C-alpha cells in the first residue's frame, strides 16, 4: 500500500471542512493497522473502484459525530443522532471522498466512489478486504475523525 495515497484524503479534509463551518483543521497521527478494526461510535463506509479498489472507513465517536453534525447545520443543537444528523454525516463523507477522488484524478489515478453506508454501535468489529489499513486522524475544531484507507493491492 502506497503512503502517497493518504495525501488526497488529507488535502480533501483541509479543503472541505472549512467550507462547512469548521475554523481549524489539523492533521493528526498516521498509523498502519491490520485488516481487523474495532470501533465504537459512528462508522461510515464508502466503496471505491477504478484504478484503485477498496473502501474508506470513517470513524467518529458518537458525541463528536453530534458536534460535527451540529456545526454542519449552522449550530443547530443535535441531542441525538437522528435522521438529519446521520444524513449530514453521510453527506460529509461523500464530499470528502469525492473531493479526494478529484485529487486522485489529478495524480492520473481515476477512481469512482459508491454511496456511503452509515452504521453506529459499540464494539463493532470490521474486517477489510485489504491486508493493511492506513489510518489517519484528522481534526476539525479539535474533533477527531479517523479515516481508514483500505486499498486492495
Amino acid at each position, binding site marked *: 500500500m502506497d503512503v502517497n495515497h493518504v495525501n488526497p484524503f488529507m488535502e480533501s479534509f483541509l479543503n472541505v471542512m472549512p467550507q462547512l463551518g469548521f475554523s481549524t483543521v489539523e492533521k493528526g497521527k498516521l498509523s498502519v493497522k491490520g485488516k481487523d478494526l474495532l470501533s465504537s461510535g459512528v*462508522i461510515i*463506509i*464508502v*466503496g*471505491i*473502484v*477504478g484504478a484503485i*479498489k*477498496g*473502501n474508506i*472507513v470513517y470513524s467518529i465517536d458518537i458525541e463528536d459525530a453530534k458536534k460535527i453534525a451540529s456545526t454542519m447545520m449552522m449550530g443547530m443543537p443535535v441531542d441525538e443522532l437522528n*435522521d438529519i444528523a*446521520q*444524513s449530514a454525516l*453521510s453527506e460529509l463523507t*461523500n464530499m470528502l471522498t*469525492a473531493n479526494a477522488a*478529484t485529487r486522485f*484524478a*489529478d495524480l492520473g489515478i481515476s477512481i*469512482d*466512489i*459508491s*454511496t*456511503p*453506508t*452509515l*452504521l*453506529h*454501535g*459499540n*464494539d*463493532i*468489529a*470490521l*474486517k*477489510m*478486504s*485489504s491486508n493493511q489499513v492506513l489510518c489517519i486522524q484528522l481534526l476539525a475544531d479539535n474533533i477527531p475523525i479517523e479515516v481508514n484507507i*483500505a486499498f*486492495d493491492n
Partner: protein
Amino acid sequence: MEKIRIVIVDDSSFSIAILRDILEEKGYEVVGEAGSLDEVKEVIKDKKPALVTMDMTLPGTDGFECTRAIHEIDSNIKVIVVSSMMDEEIVNEAKENKVSAYIQKPVDPDELIAAINRVMGSEELYKLLETDSFPVFKESLLDGVNRMTKTLLTYKDEYSANKEYISNGMTVIIGIIGKFAGRMVIDLSKETAENMATALLRRTPKNNDEMIGAIAEFANIISGNACSLLNRKDRSLGLRVAPPSILHGDNVHISAPRFKTNTAIAETNFGDILINVGFTRGEEKWM
C-alpha cells in the same frame, strides 16, 4: 415520442446556426437561443426546455454562471457545455457546476447526439434500475445459494421502507459504482453465517476469519453476478462492485440512506438472510 426541446446559448450566430442545423436534422426541437445571462433567464422561464447547449465565453458572464442560473429556475434541466476550450480544470469545474456533458468545438455531430442521448437517457436508465435491480439481486442471491450450497431459499418478506435497523449480528456492505452509485447489504445472524460458511466450505470453518472470509466472498459473488446481469440489460449502466466490508457486533445499527432501498428476507436452510439494495439518482457519473 415527444421531441426533446433544446435552447442554444452562444454569442456567435455562426455557432448557433451550426448547432441548430445539427439538432433539427436529428429531430430535436430548438425552442430558443440566448447570448447573455439576462437572455438565458428569460428564454429558460419562457420556453422551459429539457436541455441547453452552453457556450463557455459569453459577454459579461460565462457558461457556469448561466448554468447556475438555469438550475436555479429548474434543477432538472440538463446542460451540455459546447466550447472551444477544454482542459481538465475547466471540465472539473463543469462537473462542480452540475453540467451533464462537455463537448469541444468544432462540434462533431455524432459526438453531440451521443452526449444528448446519454444525458437524456439517464432518466430512463434510472427507472430501469428502479424496477429491475432488486428482482435481479434477489434472483442472484437465490441462484448463489442454490449453486454454492445446493439448497433452496424462499423469500418470506419484502419491503422498501427506509428506516434504521439493527443488525442480526453480521453485516456485509458492498459499494456499487457505475452510471449510478449504490450499495448492497447482506445481514445475517452469526449462527446463520456459521451454518452458511460450513455449507460453502463443505466443512466447518477453521476459525472466525475463515468463516468471515467465506461469507464475504459469497456476498461479493452475489453482488458481482447481479451487477453483470444488470449491465447486460443496459451496457451504459457500467456497474462495478467495491470489495466487501464485513462488520459484526452485538448492537450494530445500520442507518437508512437518503435514497430508496429495497429489503427482502430470505428463509434458507441456514437461517434468515436479509438483503438490502438501493441506488441513488443523484451524483451521476460522467462516462
